[in-house]
């Protein structure tokens, strides 16, 4: 038996939540509402961060700083990075999809701590607004998303302090979320459901949450020390007062290397959910997937100094971190081959969801290869702090995580709204995103190899043409948002009815109505012990179709 459907309870449960669209502005405790709150809030910040990115690319079409003053450029760059990481990718791949899907996957009615969950979400909008408003008050922070001292100590204090407070709030939100995910996955599992029967996204979220809980507090402590340096003029990281900037870098990257996995591990999980559904085959190598996630979690905690090869890091340390980083490519590679093997020989429907997932696989491999190259000291010393690094991480963060976010939106939109997105428009969206993305970031490898430094508003005129190509790609990426937004709004009102299980999926969220009722199922949760039994298991009729739409 792989799926058992309990009898449906004919009486719908009383709703405890506000109804209608107002509930999305309320302190709702429903995990699905909170998930969508994360999603929409994150997307608004994505649009803001994207506008900032466009400003950066416009500035870089010419070698002089003519579009913005230099210090404004620094502020825009800092806001762009901080918003994209802390207000878009981290909250969306974790908070949005995690809250929406995890309770379904473990067969629960909500997260373990619904109230904490709502608090975690409601920390985000004020933190984001505060961060952005700092630009209009006294000028935003100028020291990049890394806030390295002494730069962050010497640039205007007000913006930097607001930046620190916002990041502390967002870090707190992230920790609360992590605690909730760990408790939900380990403790709220439905009776009869074993750990090794969970959908892969649960494992990804478990691993991610472990990273969140272990590393985010270290960032918080570090930023508190940094704020002392700025406000109270202590000298923790100020060499003039006998302090040590390298300690900041170690502590910062102890969080921020895991942070890159906090952004990409959930995306791995989501892809592992989407691929099997659309190629009608079981996920290849479930067990190896689980072990490689845990391997990445462990190794991810001990590779941070590969960001510091040019910081006077002693040779033995460089050697250790090069080797550890090389090792992390192994579990990552295993996952890559597992996805390819899942696709192999499947009956693939080339819809938008799978196009974005395949786009992810391609981009991620390219970003992973440049990552392994960057971990080699002789190479890194050459390209550190150049556009090569910018290209590397955008291949991972945009080509990886953002592509997966879009893939997931196309995949789960019918579940959350009951409407289908338009496929033709979706494929068009994929095409220009993919072309725009590669046009924007592929040339940056060349720029970096030829020595163009990152984070500077001006550059050597020889780089002008290639920068203009990159900016053209950015323009295409910006435009690609339009068909997507049109698609979402149009489908929300005029889209085809999705039905409860349009993709004929086997994971539990598909076994209830679209959108699901307030506590997910009217009766008891279905027991799915083989979530990827495609080709073996008959797709059951969804539960509680009648009278349950809220």
């Amino acid at each position: 038996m792989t799926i058992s459907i309990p009898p449906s309870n004919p009486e719908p449960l009383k709703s405890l939540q506000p109804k209608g669209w107002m509930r999305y502005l309320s302190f709702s405790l429903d995990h699905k509402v909170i998930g969508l709150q994360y999603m929409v809030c994150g997307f608004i910040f994505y649009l803001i961060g994207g506008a900032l990115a466009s400003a950066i690319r416009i500035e870089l079409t010419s070698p002089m700083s003519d579009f913005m003053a230099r210090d404004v450029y620094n502020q825009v760059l800092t806001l762009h990075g901080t918003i994209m990481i802390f207000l878009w990718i981290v909250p969306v791949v974790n908070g949005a999809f995690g809250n929406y899907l995890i309770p379904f996957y473990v067969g629960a009615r909500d997260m373990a701590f619904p109230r904490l969950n709502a608090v975690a979400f409601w920390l985000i909008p004020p933190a984001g607004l505060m961060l952005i408003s700092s630009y209009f008050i006294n000028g935003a922070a100028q020291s990049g998303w890394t806030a390295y001292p002494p730069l962050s100590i010497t640039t205007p204090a007000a913006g930097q302090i607001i930046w620190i407070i916002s990041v502390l709030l967002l870090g707190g939100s992230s920790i609360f979320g992590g605690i909730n995910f760990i408790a939900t996955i380990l403790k709220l599992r439905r009776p009869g459901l074993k750990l090794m029967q969970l959908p892969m996204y649960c494992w990804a979220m478990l691993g991610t949450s472990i990273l969140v809980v272990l590393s985010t507090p270290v960032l918080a402590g570090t930023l508190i020390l940094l704020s002392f340096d700025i406000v109270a003029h202590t000298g923790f990281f100020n060499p003039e007062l006998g302090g040590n900037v390298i300690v900041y870098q170690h502590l910062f990257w102890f969080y921020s290397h895991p942070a890159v996995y906090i952004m990409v591990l959930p995306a791995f999980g989501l892809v592992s959910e989407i691929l099997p559904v659309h190629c009608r085959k079981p996920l290849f190598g479930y067990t190896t997937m689980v072990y490689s996630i845990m391997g990445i979690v462990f190794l991810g905690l001990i590779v941070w100094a590969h960001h510091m090869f040019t910081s006077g890091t002693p040779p033995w340390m460089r050697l250790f971190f090069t080797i550890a980083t090389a090792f992390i490519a192994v579990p990552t590679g295993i996952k890559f081959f597992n996805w390819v093997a899942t696709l192999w020989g499947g009956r693939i429907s080339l819809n938008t969801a799978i196009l974005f997932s395949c786009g992810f696989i391609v981009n991620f491999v390219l970003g992973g290869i440049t990552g392994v190259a960057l971990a080699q000291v002789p190479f890194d010393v050459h390209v550190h702090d150049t556009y090569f690094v910018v290209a590397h991480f955008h291949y991972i963060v945009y080509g990886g995580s953002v592509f997966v976010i879009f893939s997931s939106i196309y995949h789960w939109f019918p579940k959350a709204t009951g409407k289908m997105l338009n496929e033709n428009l979706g494929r068009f969206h994929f095409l220009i995103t993919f072309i725009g993305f590669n046009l924007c970031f592929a040339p940056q490898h060349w720029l970096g190899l030829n020595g163009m430094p990152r984070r500077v508003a001006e550059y050597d005129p020889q780089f002008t043409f290639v920068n203009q190509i990159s900016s053209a790609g950015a323009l295409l990426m910006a435009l690609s948002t339009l068909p997507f937004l049109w698609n979402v709004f149009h489908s929300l009102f005029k889209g085809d009815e999705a039905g409860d299980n349009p993709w004929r999926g086997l994971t539990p969220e598909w076994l209830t109505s679209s959108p699901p009722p307030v506590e997910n199922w009217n009766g008891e949760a279905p027991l799915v012990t083989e979530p990827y039994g495609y080709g073996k298991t008959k797709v059951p009729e969804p539960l509680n179709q009648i009278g349950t739409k809220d």
Partner: protein
Amino acid sequence: MTTTTPLEKDSQSEVPEKGSTHEHADHRLFGLITFLIADGMTFAGFFAAYLTFKAVNPLLPDAIYELELPLPTLNTVLLLVSSATFHRAGNALQKQNSKLCQKWLLITASLGLAFLASQMVEYFTLPFGLTDNLYASTFYALTGFHGLHVTLGSILIFIVWWQVKAPGGQLTHKNSFLLEAAELYWHFVDGIWVILFIILYLL
């Protein structure tokens, strides 16, 4: 492949899940432990910073950084004893002896306040201030952050005491989550102090 209906009754044992979200078993203690791990990592970051500073940044020529032992040793004793008294309070509640429980809680809270007072005395008698040098700053940051934890813990104990005392109070031997949580937190804060004492004063 089969689709079985209805679900066999025997497969659902531990977790009563009957309709409402809020009826599953209580996982708050588990959540608290996870939180304390996170909190512990903040301290770990501070300790790592302190030890690295110590290893690579020599003290500037005219800087003063000398710590006396008697007062912090007394502090260590105060906190260790308070851990034991808190445990007593928990036992008393289990035995449904509310009066005794309240007594031990008050003793614990007083020990916490005594710790804070003696910490203040130390602060005012030390020959260096927050911004004097790197070690001074780290010393104050670490002990201050820990002191903040003790302060919160003491407030928490008073809340627990109030809840045990109040007529028809919510804290009974059947519903003792708040007391258990506060106790766990208090043991954690004491444990951190012992590590802090070793690293800051003894090493």
